């Protein structure tokens, strides 16, 4: 409790409040723009961490993360184009509501629902994260190794539509993570001293998100403009409140646990929430034509899961979303030992972050209710201006890592890879998680084997590790059974256009 109050003390200093405000504004802005998500923004802002204090930077990043979730719903509702993957479900009912002239109510229930869910989930995070961290600290390398494997496996196989493409991305990431001489041996350096230090994660992240996306947009520069639904000030009637509050709570209940699992992501809970609301609603005739419950539930779920993903991030050092992955990179950039010990070693920082989540949430509600029409204006920015800026910051960011021109060549090379991945529908997230977790996975494995003096059986010598492997086995089994019983053709594929926007 003292820690939490101290956290608020840090989060509420004028300087940090200022950074939180920048974060939520920036986050909402990039959430609104499809293709530019919070992950890309964080990647572009990583160089900022060189000059700003750790607490301020992390508080700003948290603001961007939460803001992205809000912004995504605006685009989903007004344009029927999900700003990011967790808003896909919102688009189903939200856009129908907007077309029926209820855009203001849809935006209001999304914003207020996100606030309610974000607040509850943040409080849950205060309780869960330290508990989990205390538990995990006692685990040995074998268990930790198993948990990391689970996270890699789950992020790759459970999320996304194609397992094969997911694993292609994962192995690409693990390969990039191998480059360097960290282990004492030179691996994949091709005898080049510039590669001896390995490829900096900042360069990889900026390249796959910013350069890959910019190339992709450049290849599809001229597109028919989308038809936006004009909107005024968001507001809700009593009836809307009455129909919204239960879905908000149920959405939160779905979102937080799913986010907290090492196999997080917001897609599954938003979908579950939508299905539940559809079943429980007293207005089944409205579903598919713009039911407010179908917006309230999933929007609450995606914000709650965003808070949930911070549990594995802070307690285990395991990122499960692209944005969380880049926050981890930022923490590592400050030299913090991410993992179960983070909360013990740097309680001030962690609690400042946890407190700032609540601050960010309140700021978002204040900013978003009156500003919705202004956010919609962002969609009118011509793409060349937008992406020129992004490319500029991407190059600057990559160059400032080591101040060597070679990184710019790497940036372009990996950017081309990112473009190819978008072209062939390969998800980017497993690659990023692979690059980040690959070296840590190896470290845990070597530690475990050193302690056991090379005896491989140590890997399943701890109960937690055994349980984790069993869970992985079950997941694998479930996937195979489902694959056999229902051929791939039966899976509903999103339309091409949707896919492009979602799978990145």
């Amino acid at each position, binding site marked *: 409790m003292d820690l939490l109050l101290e956290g608020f003390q840090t989060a509420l200093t004028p300087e940090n409040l200022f950074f939180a405000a920048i974060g939520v504004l920036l986050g909402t802005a990039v959430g609104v723009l*499809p293709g530019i998500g919070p992950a890309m923004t964080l990647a572009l802002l990583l160089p900022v961490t060189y000059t700003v204090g750790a607490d301020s930077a992390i508080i700003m990043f948290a603001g961007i993360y939460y803001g992205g979730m809000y912004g995504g719903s605006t685009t989903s509702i007004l344009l029927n184009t999900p700003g990011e993957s967790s808003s896909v479900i919102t688009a189903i009912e939200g856009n129908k509501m907007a077309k029926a002239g209820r855009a203001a109510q849809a935006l209001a229930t999304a914003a207020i629902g996100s606030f309610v869910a974000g607040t509850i989930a943040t409080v849950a995070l205060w309780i869960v994260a330290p508990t989990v961290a205390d538990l995990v600290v006692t685990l040995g390398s074998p268990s930790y190794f198993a948990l990391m494997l689970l996270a890699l496996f789950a992020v790759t196989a459970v999320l996304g539509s194609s397992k094969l493409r997911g694993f292609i991305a994962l192995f690409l990431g693990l390969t990039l993570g191998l480059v360097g001489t960290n282990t004492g041996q030179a691996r994949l350096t091709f005898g080049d001293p510039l590669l001896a230090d390995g490829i900096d994660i900042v360069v990889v992240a900026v390249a796959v998100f910013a350069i890959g996306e910019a190339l992709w947009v450049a290849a599809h520069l*001229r*597109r*028919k*403009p*989308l038809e*936006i639904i004009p909107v005024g000030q968001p507001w809700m009637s009593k009836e809307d409140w009455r129909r919204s509050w239960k879905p908000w709570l149920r959405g939160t209940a779905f979102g937080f646990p799913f986010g907290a699992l090492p196999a997080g992501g917001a897609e599954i809970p938003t979908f579950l929430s939508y299905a539940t609301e559809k079943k429980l609603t007293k207005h089944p005739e409205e579903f598919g034509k713009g039911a407010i419950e179908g917006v309230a539930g999933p929007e609450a779920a995606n914000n709650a899961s965003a808070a949930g993903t911070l549990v594995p991030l802070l307690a285990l050092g395991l990122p499960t979303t692209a944005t969380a992955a880049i926050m981890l990179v930022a923490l590592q950039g400050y030299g913090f030992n991410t993992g179960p010990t983070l909360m013990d070693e740097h309680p001030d920082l962690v609690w400042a972050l946890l407190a700032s989540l609540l601050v960010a949430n309140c700021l978002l509600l204040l900013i978003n209710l009156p500003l919705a029409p202004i956010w919609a204006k962002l969609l*009118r920015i*011509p*793409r060349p201006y937008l992406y020129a800026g992004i490319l500029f910051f991407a190059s600057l960011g990559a160059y400032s890592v080591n101040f060597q021109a070679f990184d710019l060549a790497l940036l372009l090379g990996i950017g081309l890879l990112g473009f190819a991945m978008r072209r062939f529908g390969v998800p980017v997230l497993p690659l990023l998680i692979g690059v980040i977790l690959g070296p840590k996975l190896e470290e845990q494995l070597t530690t475990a084997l050193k302690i056991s003096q090379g005896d491989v059986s140590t890997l399943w010598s701890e109960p937690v590790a055994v349980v984790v492997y069993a869970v992985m086995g079950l997941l694998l089994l479930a996937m195979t059974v489902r694959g056999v019983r229902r051929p791939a053709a039966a899976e509903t594929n999103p339309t091409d256009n949707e896919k492009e926007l979602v799978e990145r």
Partner: protein
Amino acid sequence: MSIVVAYSADRYGEAALTHAAEQARKERTRLVVVNATLGNKLVDDRFAHDADITALQERLAAEGLEVVVRHDLVDDVADAVVAAADEERATLIVVGIRHRSPVGKLLLGSVAQRIILEAHCPVLAVKPAA
């Protein structure tokens, strides 16, 4: 023979369209409506929605006008209007014009100005009623 109108989905475009329709009625010629966009924005307010274009077409057809609509993605809006005028052997191009601030003039080009300078036929510049 035809009259080409550079149409944008705002009051300037509406003014141009109204005048062009009047001229077409007087001269008993075809009316070619050009509504084009570069397609480099996610949302372009001046590019009419498909439903609005259909409505506009029906409205003008009901008035007894022969209407052709060119509703396209193009590389350059002014070029597209001039090219449409050449192809349709236009006797007149109608454009809507607006007040522009000094800064706006510095930063942005004017589609109307380029049409006026580059067209191969007379151009009628129209302002909406104040």
